[in-house]
């Protein structure tokens, strides 16, 4: 493995790392209407600042007869304010090498603020 310590080897490794990193990404889908359920103690830069964020991070095993999974969190009658799903390189590998029978689910979501009408 000595050759990985050469500048060319290190550059190759960096390139591979960057490629793997760019395989992981997330997308947010947010409702244009409605206000996010607030969390005054959540101070983080960006979209989730002041919002109550819930996270689903699990792996679902499917039987031979099953081909999909659905998670059913309770967001009340006002529904979802936003959902962010993340796809990682590892999750894609897991899905591929188990022929779709082990699925990683990484979701962040925010519910809509409850109305008082």
């Amino acid at each position, binding site marked *: 493995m000595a050759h990985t310590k050469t500048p060319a080897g290190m550059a190759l490794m960096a390139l591979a790392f960057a490629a793997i990193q760019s395989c992981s990404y997330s997308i947010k889908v947010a409702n*244009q*209407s*409605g*206000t996010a359920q*607030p969390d*005054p*103690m959540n*101070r983080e*830069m*960006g*979209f989730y*600042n*002041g919002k109550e964020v819930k996270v689903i991070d699990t792996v679902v095993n499917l039987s031979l007869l099953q081909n999909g999974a659905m998670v059913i969190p309770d967001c009340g009658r006002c529904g979802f304010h936003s959902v962010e799903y993340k796809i990682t390189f590892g999750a894609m590998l897991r899905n591929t090498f188990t022929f779709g029978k082990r699925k990683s689910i990484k979701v962040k979501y925010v519910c809509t*603020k*409850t*109305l*008082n*009408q």
Partner: protein
Amino acid sequence: MANIKITHTTQWDNFHFNGPFPLKTHYDIDTNRNIRTLINRFNDSAAEIQKLIQDSLDCNERLRAYGSAWSLSNVAQQGDRMLYNARLNIQQEIKDEQLHELTPHLSENLFFFQCGTTVKEITEYLFDKGKSLKACGASNGQTIAGAISTGVHGASINEGSIQDCVVGLQIIIGPGPGDIVYLERETEPALNDEFAVSINARPIRHDGLFNAALVGLGAFGIIHGVVLEAEDLYLLKRYVKKIKPSEALEIAASMDFDNAAFRILEETNPDGTVTIPYHYKLYINPYKATEDFVTEIIYKKPYRSDYPDPVPFVKKAIFKDIPTWVSNFAAKHKKLIPKILDALKSEAFPEVDETIEGTLGEIFWDTSQSSAAFGCAFGIDNKDSTKALKLFIELMNEKGPIPGILSMRFVKQSAATLAFTKFPVTCVLEVDGIPWKANQDMISLDDFLTEVIKSFTANHIGFALHWGKNAPWGFPGLIDTMFGDKDDEWKDMRSALLTKQMADMFSNDFLNTIKLADYRTQLTGDALAARTLVTANG
């Protein structure tokens, strides 16, 4: 019983990360949705807040309510106990039988909101009724109580600020049974005494008291209910154009759109006159001030439903680290700030020649905070706008550069005693940017703004500062410089409404710094009349 979550802590921060500030106990209150009737649910929340006030008195600690924490100054902060009220979002229509017999208002235009209802929630609620707010800020996340208490202004040339739509206030001024009041103007009553009784409040109608409590900085008690006047739903048509600085500033100083060299063809009438815009905003790069100004001009139009959705379908976000990096870099290499700002122009300025249409809520839609931010807004007479801008830009170049861009908006005068939109047409001259750490080569934000205050004063430019933004609030004599005798009027009215003990309960460091916390035991004239009304049946 309303639900209250208690968190013992040591610090708290606002939405724009201008802290952290010290805090002992945080209360997070929500309505009890098991109570079926909205008005009973509303009264239950008020009763719980009163219990918190009593407990704070017993523990010899202060209590301060806050909402979305959007203020960049420490106006919302208080070191003992803070009450988060943004879950208190009851919304109700007003019925004909609730109107005061002398009211000039129509019941269909009046709505009752609990303190924590956000501007976005109000906008959506009103939309369903075919109504709209008359004005709002550049975004929609503020709670109604927070927005009016700090004078959130938007940029409505003919309608004024959010507080100017308010016709009634329910305020909790103490822990006792008579300590919930419902304030209105005597000359502009809105709702009858039966309404006040239904929300367990004593009606008090007094112009001076109402106007002082309107932009009350959280110092008049806990605003728990707000009666707003809305209007029929309308559309806003937004144009973004580039205008020569001299032409843009001529309009700014005169508000004479008819005789201006700049005009928009679609908004020009056959007789050569033009439609007066609802909103006029100039974006200015202070380090390239001779460039044409990017200008946002918005016109009010009758509502129709067949317009393209103005909210972008895809919104791109910058890396969260970029603003921090820019700030750190700027503090070390300040000469590069103008180049960095120029490069970031597309992120800060709207796209030129883009025209969109939408409701008030759609045009001034959501923002999310991608970094810590600073913002400072000087309210000046629009007639002084050219001179003030010149001085401001000179200082940014001489004392800075600092990482911020300038803008100018124009707002109708407010009736509130301490509204910073105090001129007949107030030009809001704003600087917004990324905070930086001062060093021997780089002036601090406070020192820079102090230089602006000194320069404006030396050049006889009257001004007032936005309460919810950054400023050197400890500048000697600042309150008198900004408001003359008006601050005395405000203090008198506060002393008329509150006991000394409660005035202290609702004070904070910000009020002490700006010299607004002192209590007047001896009142005369209008303030004495207000106190007589307050103490009657109290």
